[in-house]
């Protein structure tokens, strides 16, 4: 643990709660770091000479005469090229047995980019997954989460996307990661021979939950170093942001703040936005793209965590098991990439937007037909055809195991249109049916 000369040591705590301690001290700055009984802590409240500190690993066993020293600085990370290939904990200390990082010290949670200095994101990120590339294309500089129930293979899909995305650096921020998932990420990154491009900040389920609060800022400080100082394209993976938000609510609860919806703090929107808005396309070429995971409970997206996330991010990728084909798909109804219109039909073939919309509309008709069927009504010929279409569409395009280029995805879609429908039923601009219709 770091220490400085001439440091004043305090030894009298006046108040201890589950997450915080309070003591009398002077000359302390807001959000300054401190060490309490050997544990890292941060100033969260100052009233006169009463300083309240949040202890990241909890207050269990801390006595009223514990030693407290203030570090005179906010939380920081040392940045340099040495970060590549390394694994760290939430405080930025190595956990892979390697040496300490040498480099420039940066404050984490730094100010945001001036909006007029941003560039409009414009570079398509191809993943090979049609549920993404065809229906919800990603663009560098975007921020987008997977919405998935805890039993979905979201970490696997995310690792796939990351490795196919051709980023210069991949930065993993793991929050409440199970040890198995941590080892899984380590293994796929190693197998892909990509380890030197990857930097990981990991808080596992074995670590105290409140420590997680530092993980996104650590990951994003490293990301800004590579994107701004080195003009690199950086992909940041944050999993699982629901566990991050849970940690926020633990803290605000223990500080007696009035909770708003779903016992989340009233500032949840701002807290999450501060993180997600770090996604940016810089004028000098570097970019930060954030792909996150927000686990749902029972698919409920009206819960405060996914709800606030959806209002902040540029779309969401909704994973769902399609029982008709027995595979996990990217649900075309609830998924959305809001930046897709910047690239589709421009960096992809011209018919892309119309094909995408027509297919989703027909898939919606199939959903209606299915409801009819479940309610015991007779199906029309059109209903039957939409159901056939939906099964193939799901299997050949929506399933997460698809890995083809965008042009092939469009061809597959035209194939399915021609096989199941008439031109009027598909309702695409004539210019495109003239070119691509497969009768």
């Amino acid at each position: 643990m770091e220490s400085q000369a001439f440091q004043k040591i305090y030894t009298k705590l006046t108040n201890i709660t589950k997450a915080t301690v309070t003591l009398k001290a002077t000359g302390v700055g807001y959000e300054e770091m401190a060490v309490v009984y050997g544990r890292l802590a941060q100033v969260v409240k100052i009233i006169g000479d009463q300083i309240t500190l949040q202890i990241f690993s909890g207050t269990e066993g801390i006595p009223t005469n514990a030693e407290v020293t203030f570090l005179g600085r906010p939380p920081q990370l040392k940045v340099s090229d040495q970060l590549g290939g390394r694994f760290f904990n939430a405080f930025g200390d190595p956990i892979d047995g390697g040496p300490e990082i040498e480099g420039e010290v940066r404050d984490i949670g730094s100010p945001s980019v001036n909006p007029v200095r941003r560039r409009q994101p414009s570079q398509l990120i191809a993943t090979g997954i049609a549920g993404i590339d065809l229906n919800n294309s990603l663009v560098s500089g975007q921020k987008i989460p997977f919405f998935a129930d805890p039993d979905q293979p979201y970490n696997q899909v995310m690792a796939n996307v990351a490795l196919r995305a051709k980023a210069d650096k991949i930065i993993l921020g793991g929050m409440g990661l199970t040890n198995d998932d941590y080892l899984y990420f380590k293994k796929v990154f190693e197998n892909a021979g990509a380890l030197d491009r990857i930097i990981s900040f990991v808080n596992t389920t074995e670590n105290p939950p409140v420590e997680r609060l530092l993980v996104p800022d650590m990951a994003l400080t490293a990301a800004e170093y590579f994107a701004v100082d080195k003009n690199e394209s950086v992909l940041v993976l944050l999993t699982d942001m629901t566990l991050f938000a849970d940690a926020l609510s633990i803290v605000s609860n223990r500080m007696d703040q009035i909770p708003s919806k779903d016992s989340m703090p009233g500032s949840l929107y701002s807290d999450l936005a501060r993180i997600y808005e770090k996604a940016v396309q810089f004028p000098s070429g570097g970019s930060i793209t954030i792909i996150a995971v927000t686990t749902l409970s029972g698919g409920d997206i009206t819960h405060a965590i996914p709800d606030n996330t959806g209002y902040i991010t540029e779309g969401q990728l909704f994973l769902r098991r399609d029982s008709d084909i027995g595979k996990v798909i990217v649900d075309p109804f609830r998924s959305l990439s809001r930046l897709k219109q910047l690239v589709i039909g421009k960096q992809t073939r011209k018919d892309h937007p119309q094909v995408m919309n027509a297919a989703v509309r027909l898939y919606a008709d199939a959903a209606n037909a299915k409801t009819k069927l479940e309610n015991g009504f007779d199906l029309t010929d059109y209903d039957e055809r939409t159901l056939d279409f939906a099964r193939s569409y799901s299997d050949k395009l929506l399933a997460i195991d698809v890995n083809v280029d965008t042009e092939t995805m469009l061809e597959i879609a035209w194939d399915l249109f021609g096989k199941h429908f008439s031109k009027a039923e598909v309702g695409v601009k004539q210019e495109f049916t003239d070119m691509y219709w497969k009768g």
Partner: protein
Amino acid sequence: MERKNKTTGKVAGIVANLVIVDVSGPVAQNEICFIHLAHERLMAEVIKVVGNHAYVQVFESTRGLKVGSHVEFEGHMLEVTLGPGILSRNYDGLQNDLDKMEGVFLTRGEYTDPLNREVKWAFKPIAQKGDKVTAGDWLGEVSENGMPHKIMVPFKMEGRYEINWVIEAGNYVVDEVIAKITDDEGNEFPLTMVQRWPVKMAIRAYKNKPRPFRLLETGVRCIDTLNPITEGGTGFIPGPFGTGKTVLQHAISKQAEADIVIIAACGERANEVVEIFTEFPELDDPRTGKKLIERTTIIANTSNMPVAAREASVYTAMTLAEYYRSMGLRILLMADSTSRWAQALREMSNRLEELPGPDAFPMDLSAVISNFYSRAGYVYLNNGSTGSITFIGTVSPAGGNLKEPVTESTRKAARCFYGLSQARADSKRYPAIDPIDSYSKYLEYPEVQESLEKNVGSEWLGDVLKAKDVLLRGKEAMEQINILGDDSVPLSFHDRYWKSELIDFVILQQDAFDKIDCSTPMKRQKYMLSSVLKVADSEFTFKGFEEVSGFFKEVINYFKQMNYSEFESEQFKAHEKALQAFLKERMN
């Protein structure tokens, strides 16, 4: 609030961006102060006073702030600077010019001048020596991006004055004294082109505010045709995330018939503002042929920028709009999203440990929102000219539930309700405005009805009501079909349902990203509505319900091709002819 000596104080406590200051003199509610750190000054606003403790909300991060820091109170509330050169600017919520800031990242404590003090404006006098004037009266005019920008008697000047002197026509910087006026007691006041005004106070330099009566064309069919908004009217767009609030607002701001558009990006995504920066300098204003950016001012307080300034941003935007309205211009003001502003109020109220209202929002939320919406409106200025602020805000209801406090409070304040429906967005029926639940109270105003009849056509109102009727009956028919099954209902139910689908697909749905379809002038809206209603009024004979859907899908397809074609072009007419031929076959 003006004081001889500045009140000072010392920081006594810090909880996030709420700072408690020990003051040594008088302070006023909402007074601005600066907290001095080693290298920077942080701006803050007084939001509560208890004894000699002023509670201030800081417009910046308080990281590193210490107890004992020196605080200086400014003797005024949060103000904006008003003068030529506001158009095309990108401001933050406190009206700092974002382009003047150095570096890629925002720097705490950096405040920049909203105006350019060097550029010279071609001033032409309007008033002359001897004229009697009051606040808001026009002294002269400069051309700002081709728009007449009036230089007015400052709004803060109470009472009547006489003009002593007005500078002759010529090129001057904004700080040049351009007129001198005297009050009854003979005190002389030199006036420049610049004035300041506190954002939380409404500018009332007008004679009266009648009910709005004239349609404001937005080019969006399901607004203009079904639930029109008026010049000086108010509306709001609630909708779950991703249902199209921002896309709709951007479409309106590109197309609407306004002289000036002010967009407040309040706690939303920075990339959406970048989209405006990137696109508006390229896009033409359909009416003037100039670039859209020339009539636009952006207030960007995006979600990662300080929360307290988010609250200020909507007021800053409204005050700029009021300033331009006083020049006799038509302003369109957009705020996306007013829920973020309400949340900023909530965060602060919670830190102040106030007794919370529903969903932990402050108790006076409804009053705050109503007060804000009431600043919009159509006005007659003292000189008989007219000006207007049309305000449209978005609301982001938590969990998509319209029964939450911000939506409910806004419903009381705004006269048009454009509710976006998740189901419509899911099935890509954009814009996802729910045609049944949405409303425009203006349609019930006799003066609006009269104006529509005069300007659009005598049969128009009847057509609009008919279209609404078809939509409603179609929805009812669909519910019956869903309950009873396709073949257990009479064929007429299918006919009714598909006629409503026809209106839905052809009139309501509109592709915001298609060059032609994105904006429909009123003349074209009228033509399309009457064409569609002709089909809806016709009787067709069908053998079975499958034939009904097949037939209408074809009809919809023809109409859609028309929507994608230039109005009255060869292509448009060809599709129309093909449609007529197809219809003729079926007509009996």
